[in-house]
């Protein structure tokens, strides 16, 4: 126990990195999910096909592989590109933080695409028609009518995606990001107490997932408030 306290500071630092990755990847997830859902529901056959290929590949491939392809792939490409101008340079990469956030955003974004698509389809057609009849522009219909109603339907499933996203942040240690898994590794090599250290990581993640579940519960109550009152 006192061992855990001794290492509290490095773990806190690592936990902060996890939260940063989570925040960046969450924004990417929502943006990619909305774009993907729009593509899937669009009139263009090419866009629909592209979105379909995207969700199939990113939901059917192990998360680690996607992470490795993005990180090492971009490093090889970037290095080749930079060496065209500066041949003395050996290695250039996208920092693991950004490569990792992008990979997580793309992975969970594929799931969010499906969720948002279903939720958009769940908004009654009459709502959009009524908004149109009232003279709202395309953007206004999207932001004031379709998006808020879609959100309510998507929230429970999207909450699960947030939990997956949080747990997937642990994978970024594989490409060398210095977060809590890394802290635990260092702490283990110093103290040779691997169970204590990795259990610490587990407890931190448990706390984070619990907070997310709590937050999603709150949001759900907020999003369905108008339904509660009418009962």
């Amino acid at each position, binding site marked *: 126990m006192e061992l855990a306290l001794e290492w509290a500071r490095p773990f806190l630092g690592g936990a902060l990195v996890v939260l940063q990755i989570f925040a960046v990847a969450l924004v990417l997830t929502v943006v990619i999910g909305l774009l993907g859902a729009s593509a899937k529901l669009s009139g263009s056959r090419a866009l629909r096909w592209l979105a379909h290929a995207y969700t199939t590949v990113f939901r*059917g491939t192990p998360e680690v592989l996607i992470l490795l392809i993005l990180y090492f792939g971009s*490093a090889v490409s970037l290095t080749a590109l930079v060496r065209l101008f500066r041949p003395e340079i050996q290695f250039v990469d996208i920092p693991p933080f950004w490569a990792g956030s992008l990979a997580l955003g793309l992975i969970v974004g594929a799931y969010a695409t499906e969720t948002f698509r279903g939720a958009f389809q769940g908004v009654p057609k009459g709502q959009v028609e009524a908004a149109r009849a009232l003279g709202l522009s395309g953007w206004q219909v999207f932001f004031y009518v379709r998006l808020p109603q879609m959100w309510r339907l998507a929230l429970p499933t999207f909450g699960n995606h947030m939990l997956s996203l949080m747990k997937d942040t642990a994978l970024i240690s594989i490409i060398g990001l210095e977060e809590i898994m890394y802290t635990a590794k260092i702490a283990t090599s110093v103290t040779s107490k691997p169970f204590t250290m990795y259990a610490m990581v*587990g407890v931190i993640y448990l706390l984070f997932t619990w907070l997310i579940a709590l937050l999603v519960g709150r949001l759900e109550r907020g999003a369905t408030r108008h339904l509660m009152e009418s009962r």
Partner: protein
Amino acid sequence: MSFDIALILDSVPKLLAGIGLTLQLLLLSGLFGTLLGVLTCAARLSRLPILRWPGWLYITLFRGTPLLVQIFIIYYGLAQFEAIRDSFLWTFLREPYWCAILAFALNTGAYTGEIFRGGVQGVDKGLTEAAWALGLNRWHRLRYIVAPIALRLSLPAYGNDMISLLKGTALASTITLLDITGVARNIVAKTFAPYEIFISAAIVYLCMTWVIQRLVAWAEWRLNRPLRAS
């Protein structure tokens, strides 16, 4: 930047050699995980708090933490305890292979446990009441009424969980196992050709995902026969 076709042709047989291990991990941990899921489901639905409570704790712990952390706790962590190192368990727990299977099975067990519970709770109450009224005993109600319907209800989610498990087995490569991902990482470390190798590996996984999806669709079709007949 060019795509090295010769390298791909050279590596694909090596990657395919990793399929055996990936399949073993998938099937063994899928089997143990499913059994564990059934037990967990039973515990969670039990009237006894002493069974319900550990079921809840198990599910919360394993669904609330990353799979990678679970693997590391089992593979690296358990060695911290002398009692484990001295026991007969150590013959298994010092092998990355069994540690991976244990971690995957425990992880899947927690998820499938909740899936099965959802299925059982989704069975129309009127049906069990009708079975009760017909004089079916506890075992018969479970065997002929609840289980078939619950299975049908939980199959889609169960199929998704098996796909998650397949993708999860890629993490076995983090504890030195040479599954498809492990082999791919080894080749990349030597050739530094990430696109060619990792994308080839991804295609192998995509094919396996597709096969699982077809199998689940087929099972769903079989189980839904009574519904189609009406």
